[in-house]
Each structure stands twice: as structure tokens, then as C-alpha cells.
């Protein structure tokens, strides 16, 4: 009973904050709403006894990704009004599409039900069951292929990001450490022999 109540409470907060992400005008507020929705999803995962995933979600997404995201949003000096100019001009078309899709999906769901009862509910696990251990068990055995491929995906992201952003502009003031180390005294200091000039 309590679990059910918590589920609905967290779900309501999740849906409300997810709506906030796309409706709030200030990007910082949107990002904060996203943090809230991550937190509540983590809570939902706790309810289905996926403790490890819930903690990872908080640590990785809330702790690292979203903080980085907030930094970027705050550092990019985006004029929100400028971006939104002309946005409402086509809004009616968007609303029309959304309403049509929602209407159709609702019609389908209410007409016949989703058929979600085809899958069985998960059985509760004993108290000493470690789902961290279970994930560790399958990560490098059953799921080793997609796991390694995901690593390649990260490599692609790195290569792509560097290709698109690193550039050598003219007049860029950077240290060239190799050149600094390789300099010799003669390059910096020139000793001239010259005759002393007569005093006039």
C-alpha cells in the first residue's frame, strides 16, 4: 500500500518536472527541473529494488552530467528572447500534431488496453540479494559485446568532438613546450664584440 502510494507520488513529481523541462522559459530552471526528474526516477528505481542503478543515476547524471550542463548553460550567454523569436509562429502546427498523436494513442489505449499483462510481474527477491553483483556478473559475460561497442561509441564521440572544435587559429597565444625546451642560449642571447667608442 505504502509502496503504491510512493509510486504514484514520485510519478506525479516526475511527470510535472518533465513538463517543466520543456515548458519553462529560463534554461537554468529547465536544467534544474531535469535534475528533479532524475532524482524521482532514481526513487522509482529504488522502489523496484534496483538500488545500484538508482545510485548510479544520481551520481552520474545528477552529480556529473547535469552540473556540467548547468555550467554550459550559464556560460553560454544566450539571449533567450532572441532564440524564441518566431518560435510561437508555428506553435499552432506543433500543438495540432501533438493533440492528434495524443488523441490517437489515447484512443488505442482505452479501446483495447495495452496488453501489458502479457509480461509477468517480477518476483520479490530475498533481502540479501545483491543486484550490484548481478550486474557485475552479466556485464562482462552476457553483455560483453554491446559493452565493448559502447566503449567504441565513446571513442567516436571523443574523435568527433576534437575534430569539430580543435583548431589552430592565427595569432593564438599558446605555449609550445617542445620549442621552449629546445631553445639554446644562443637563440635568446647574442653576444656582440664591438669596439669601445671614443668619447667625443
Amino acid at each position, binding site marked *: 500500500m505504502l509502496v503504491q502510494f510512493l509510486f504514484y507520488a514520485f510519478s506525479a513529481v516526475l511527470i510535472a518536472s518533465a513538463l517543466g523541462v520543456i515548458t519553462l522559459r529560463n534554461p537554468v530552471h529547465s536544467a534544474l527541473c531535469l535534475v528533479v526528474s532524475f532524482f524521482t526516477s532514481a526513487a522509482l528505481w529504488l522502489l523496484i529494488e534496483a538500488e545500484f542503478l538508482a545510485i548510479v543515476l544520481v551520481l552520474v547524471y545528477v552529480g556529473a552530467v547535469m552540473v556540467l550542463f548547468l555550467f554550459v548553460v550559464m556560460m553560454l550567454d544566450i539571449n533567450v528572447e532572441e532564440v524564441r523569436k518566431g518560435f510561437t509562429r508555428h506553435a499552432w502546427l506543433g500543438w495540432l500534431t501533438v493533440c492528434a498523436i495524443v488523441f490517437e494513442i489515447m484512443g488505442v489505449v482505452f479501446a483495447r488496453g495495452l496488453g501489458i499483462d502479457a*509480461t509477468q510481474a517480477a518476483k520479490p527477491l530475498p533481502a540479501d540479494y545483491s543486484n550490484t553483483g548481478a550486474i557485475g556478473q552479466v556485464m562482462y559475460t552476457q553483455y560483453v559485446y554491446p559493452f565493448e561497442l559502447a566503449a567504441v561509441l565513446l571513442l567516436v564521440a571523443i574523435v568527433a568532438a576534437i575534430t569539430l572544435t580543435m583548431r589552430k587559429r592565427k595569432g593564438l597565444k599558446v605555449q609550445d613546450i617542445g620549442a621552449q625546451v629546445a631553445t639554446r642560449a644562443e637563440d635568446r642571447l647574442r653576444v656582440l664584440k664591438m669596439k669601445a667608442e671614443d668619447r667625443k
Partner: protein
Amino acid sequence: MTDTTFSLAQILPAMPEIYLTAAVCALLLFDVFFGLKAPGRTASFTLFLLLGGALVTLVTADVQVAHLLFSGMYIADNLATLLKLAAFLFVAVALYYSGDYLNRRRIHKGEYYVLSLTALLGILVLASAGNLITVYIGVELLSLSLYALVAFDRDNGVAAEAAMKYFVLGAIASGTLLYGMSLVYGMTGSLSLDILSSALSGEPSLGLLLGLTFIVVAIGFKFGAVPFHMWVPDVYQGAPTPVTMLVATAPKLASFALAFRLLAEGMAGQVAAWSQMLSVLAVVSIVLGNIVAIAQTNLRRMLAYSAISNVGFILLGFVSGTADGYQAALYFTLVYVLTTLGSFGVILLAARDGFEADEIEQYKGLSKRDPLLALVMAALMFSTAGVPPFVGFWAKLRVLESLIHGGHLWLAGIAVLMSVIGAFYYLRLVWMMYFEAPGDLPGKLTRAPIRLMVVVNAFAALALGLMPDALLDVCRSVIPL
């Protein structure tokens, strides 16, 4: 349930992917040490790696019966081998065409080759995906590499815009795919395509239909089928020509693999549901692609709409839901990629400094200035239009046959009608090259090896057309009845 030991024999069929991943890492290092001063070396090394990859694929492809590896994540079968082999060769030819152009545009950098190889890895992963997770990661590997490649020429505003459009629409498509997969998983409790195909038969529940619809939408996006085609013309026109060539050729093999693995294998029990959706996508693609292509003045944009209409044909092959139809679709895909590769090779050869050779007007009188190039382009256009004896004709014929056998007469009728209309814009280009007075454009470029390659490419389109059953028999053997 989990087989936790890995022996060499067990992972041997996955050798093409393992080889290519190692090759990407080797190429990254090679480029740092040897390629920074002379990008040509990286290009040669990449070609060497690709040919090696084709060899590895051939050697390790001892597949008598299809079997699963990595707990069902990976399918090793003859279809996967054929697609991988074709992908290795097509990408190698595409990179061979593009090096010279990149040099002249001063955007010749090693990352171009690295990202091309990672895109190729995505294609390989899709070709033998046995699980929804693998499918998704393959799609992302391919797409991420292509987004970066489209934006590769950073100082070009048009390319950046095209990349942005491609990225945003591609991200939506990925989201759609993931959403559809999660619904299907929710309904069946399994991510494995093998289990899905046996679990899904009979009357589908509506939740399942919903998931299936999202998956079909995502496939439509990746193919560039109407109404999910918005990115195609902009990317074809905006990206640097070599990248357009890469986007236009080998990824079509990946889209075929995506559709085949997800729909024809995973959702085999629901043919009735998805073939209906695909037939709608196919018909609007063929109609819109062919009609809008007539109005184009830019050759790359015209080829983009031509791609949309050809994608319609590939989807038509899937509509009948029989092995016959899949064979025709595979045949069509291979043939289409082959001819498109040649067409873009000609565009790359015709380009000069500060002159892209992508307006149709610029091809006026090409037969006087450069008879060989004009002949090659004419052959390739005839093939794409579906004129016998070129191979494009047989490809279209096989798809139409599969439709008629499946009882979809009216679909076949529309396809024929639209092909006739579509032939107009291919033949207009040929007319311009042969019967219009030449404009004052620079003369021909002497790039003998690349010219030879383009000629070989066009000759392949002719030779395969003279022996139409050669390639078709291969397609028949890899998709058993």
C-alpha cells in the same frame, strides 16, 4: 543461460568487427605519427586496412548455418558476411575517390578516415545484430560518425547547417527507435530478436503495434523515406561532396540490415502489420521523390530525391514479406549503392578549385570536353533510371516481380508509372551532356587512377546487367527461403 567462457573458436566469426576496431585504433596512432604532414599516407594506410578487412571477412566467413554468438547478441550468417564484404569494398572505393578532392579543398585530414571507419563499424554491427541493444548501438555508431563527417568542413556554413539538421532529426529518430524498442520489450519481456520472432505471432496487442509503429518510423528516418526525408536533400547538398558520397552509399546497406533484422527477422510474426505501413512509406517516397527531382537544378539535390525514390523501391521489396522480396530488396540495395558510388565519383572528378560541379547546367556539353567522363555518367544514369541492359533495370524488375507474386498489383503499377516519370530527369542529364553546347568551363583533369576506377565502376554496372543472375544468385543464397 549465460555462457561465460570465451574460446577463440567462439569469437572467430566476430573477427571483422574485432579487426576493424583494432584498425581504427591503429589508424588513430598512424595518423598522429605519420599522417599529420602528409595526409596521403593516412589515406593509403586506410585503403590497406579496408582491403585487409575484406580479406578477414572472407577468411573467417565459414558459415554453414546461421548461429548466435555472445549470448545471442551477434548473428553470424551468410547475409551478414555479404553485407560486410560489400560495405568494406564500397567504403574503400568511396575513400579512394575522395582523397584527391579533399586535397584540393585543403580539408584532407586523418579524422576523415577515422570517422569513416567508425561509421563502417556501425554498419558491420548492424549487419549481424541479434539483439535490440546491438541494433541500437550499431545505429548510433553509424549516425554519430556521419554527423561529425557532415560538419567536417568547419568553415563552411552550409555544411554546418546541414549537419545540425541531420543531427537533430537523427536524434529524434534514435529516440523514436528507443521508445519503440522499450515498448516491444515491455510487451514481450525480451530484447533478443531470436526470442522476439518466436514470441510474436498471432493477433498483436495494441501496445505492441504502438512499439512497432515507432520502430517503423525510425527505420523510415534512417532510410530517408517520405515523410521522414526532410534531412536528405539538405545533407546531400550541404555536406562536402565526398561526405555526401559516404552518406549516400554504404549506410544504405546498414538501413537494409536494420529493416531486415528488426522487421523481417525480429517481427516476422507481424508481417501483416508492418508491411502495410511500409507500403504507404514506399509509395509516397516513390511518388514524391520522382516528381520533386524533376524540379531540381542542383545535381546533388536531384540525386537526393532520386535516393528517396530508390529507397521506396527497397521498401517495396520488404512489403511482400517473403524471402523472394527480401532477396529483391538486397539485390536492389547493392545495385543502387554501386551506381550511386560511380555517380558521385564523376561529380568529384568534374569538380575544380572553387567549382563544385554540382549544378546540372554545368554538365552541358561534357561529351565534348571530357568524352570518357560523359560516357561513364551516361551509363550510370541509364542504370539508375532502369534502362536495360544495365543492372539497374534487373534490380527494379526483381522488386516488381516480388510485388506481383505477392499480389500487390497496384503497388507494382504505381512503381512502374513513377519509374517512367523518373527516367525523365536522369535522361535530361544525359541530353545536356551530349546534345547541348558546352559552356566555358575548365578542361578535364588528369587523374588517371581515379578515372580508371570510375570506368571500372560503370563497367561493373554494365557487366552485372549483362549477367543479371550472377549477383542475384548470391543474394538468393544468403537469404534462404
